[in-house]
């Protein structure tokens, strides 16, 4: 299980002076489902293209199944199936014909190609639609046909670029279950990129967080949150009202400076921040009772108190949207 099948070291891709991928180190193990997470433009697709040898890296090394894709793209493409983020088919041909074309490009004999194509169409749930023209397929069907198209060459690794984009929630669920099922059954390594955290959370063994060309963290979700929020695994949000006037929520930081000071004194509390009328408190154990007591003692009215545990969402916000300042408080 821990045998690396993809190793990336120091991978860099520059367009002019802009480094889209910057010094990326990553290894992906055989048989795992790895999620590459990051906002749009983080360099996920570029990394994938370099894995396939479709784009040349500016620096660094890639090895896929022990082969360098920059030097031997054909060998790599024999073992890797790639589903682009907006996969297209020849609209005038049926789904089956599209699959057969891919199969024959992979030098499958006609008979076997036909057998496999039929079998895969059944597997992805297009058994009855195989003879319809690909032009009338819905987005979800196209994506499933894309999966069949990727699998027809019997790959060791499949790379899916934003596979869930534009499919309805139920379709996403089914599609991801299908991928995981296939991966487990046939021992295929799956690398999928996405900016949809919940979906990825459900299916991935490990994830890598990707921001502006850099891998910020990798690991399974539990270790990831433990590492990222070391010492403060719990977040408590508190809203307070001005002393003596319960209907007046506090909106400015200067009104609660004393309270923030008092809170920092409480045992078990790490960081205390005030943004948008809410006090965010990071603590290493459940300090909600102590917080409530402190608030009341300072004369403020406690209007709202919520405990939160970190999921991918928080990880995501922390890095992608909350900006640097939030990250530094950790």
């Amino acid at each position, binding site marked *: 299980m821990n045998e690396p099948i993809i190793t990336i070291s120091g991978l860099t891709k520059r367009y002019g002076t802009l480094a889209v991928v910057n010094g990326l180190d990553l290894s992906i193990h055989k048989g795992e489902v790895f999620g590459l997470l990051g906002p749009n433009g983080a360099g996920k697709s570029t990394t994938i293209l370099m894995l396939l040898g479709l784009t040349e890296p500016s620096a660094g090394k890639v090895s896929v199944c022990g082969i360098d894709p920059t030097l031997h793209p*054909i060998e790599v493409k024999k073992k890797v199936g790639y589903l682009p*983020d907006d996969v297209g088919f020849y609209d005038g041909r049926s789904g089956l014909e599209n699959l057969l074309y891919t199969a024959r*490009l992979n030098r499958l004999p006609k008979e076997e190609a036909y057998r496999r194509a039929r079998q895969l169409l059944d597997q992805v749930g297009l058994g009855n639609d195989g003879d319809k023209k690909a032009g009338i397929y819905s987005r979800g069907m196209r994506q499933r046909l894309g999966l069949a198209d990727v699998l027809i060459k019997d790959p060791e690794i499949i790379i899916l670029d934003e596979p869930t984009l534009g499919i309805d929630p139920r379709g996403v669920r089914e599609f991801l279950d299908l991928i995981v099922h296939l991966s487990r059954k046939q021992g295929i390594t799956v690398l999928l990129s996405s900016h949809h955290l919940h979906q990825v959370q459900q299916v991935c063994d490990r994830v890598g967080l990707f921001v502006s060309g850099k891998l910020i963290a990798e690991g399974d979700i539990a270790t990831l949150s433990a590492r990222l929020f070391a010492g403060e695994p719990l977040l408590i949000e508190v809203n307070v009202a001005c002393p003596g006037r319960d209907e007046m929520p506090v909106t400015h930081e200067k009104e609660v400076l004393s309270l923030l000071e008092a809170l920092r004194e409480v045992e078990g509390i790490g960081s205390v921040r005030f943004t948008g009328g809410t006090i965010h408190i990071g603590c290493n154990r459940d300090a909600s009772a102590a917080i409530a007591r402190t608030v009341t003692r300072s004369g403020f009215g406690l209007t709202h108190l919520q405990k939160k545990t970190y999921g991918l969402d928080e990880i995501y916000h922390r890095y992608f949207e909350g900006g640097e300042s939030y990250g530094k408080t950790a």
Partner: protein
Amino acid sequence: MEKLLSTPAPAQAAKLPLHPFWVIVSKEMSDHVRSWRFIILLSLILLTCAGSLYTALNNIGTPSKTGSPVNGTFFFLQLFTATDGSLPSFIVFINFLGPLLGIAMGFDAVNSEFNRGTLSRIMAQPVHRDYLLNGKFVASLLVVGILFFSLTLLVTGLGLVFIGIPPTASEFLRILSFSLLSILYVAFWLNLSILFSIRFRQPATSALTSIAAWLFLTIFYPILIRLVAKLLAPDAGSFPGPGDEPYSYQHTLLKLLRFAPSQLFSDATTTLLMPSIRSLGPLTMEQVAGAIPNPLPLGESVLIVWPQLTGLVAATVLCFALSYVSFMRKEIRSR
């Protein structure tokens, strides 16, 4: 298993799987043959061919009209060149419609794959990148080749039926080399439009650019040259005068005209199909004097059009090289 038998697919199962390049070629060919634009152009070409054949057959019986009795010995070739002025001859039609055919087959070769999102999918298969481009080119060329050969053979056959005189061996060779030349000519336009299809992302842009290039080179360029020629023309008064001024003037003019591939093509075809043509440039009186108006053998005719042939080949290869380079450098991303 029953399903497998019921399909039209596997005819020769035991054979080795086809090389991916030929898989691409065969797919592209079937795409072409199935496409509406090809069918429309094909019927257009067939119609005009029938028309020009008809006029040719009407006029072929009256050799006095074409003047020189020499042509009589190459009676059969007149099928392709004869006209009474109401309808252009076969070669003029090919000169006109051939480029259109080439453009129609190439203008969306690469950008439509890109826009459909199939390009990145195909590029993720274990094929070399140039297979796609070469495959498309070879497929279109094969389709054009089959089309033109069958067309000329069809015209030959019909002519045979109607005139009743079989073509001589040299006539037949001339007809075959004419077909080859036409294919080469279409290949040039095909490559030019493929080049545009790589450069421009919208098929409409590349189609319009190709057509613009075609119109310019076939229609406006000669007009432009004639305008310039008028300015440069030697004084009419001195025309019979001394020196070779008019001669070199004619030469320059023709040279300029021959930058257009259509001029090269029509030069080459007329020479091939009219054996009496012995030079494509102006001839001085001294050169003509004493010449016996005999038709040239095929080898000599080919020799005359050799520069034209080389020019066409060079233009085709240049376009192909440019498209090859820009395609290989293109970064393939999904749409």
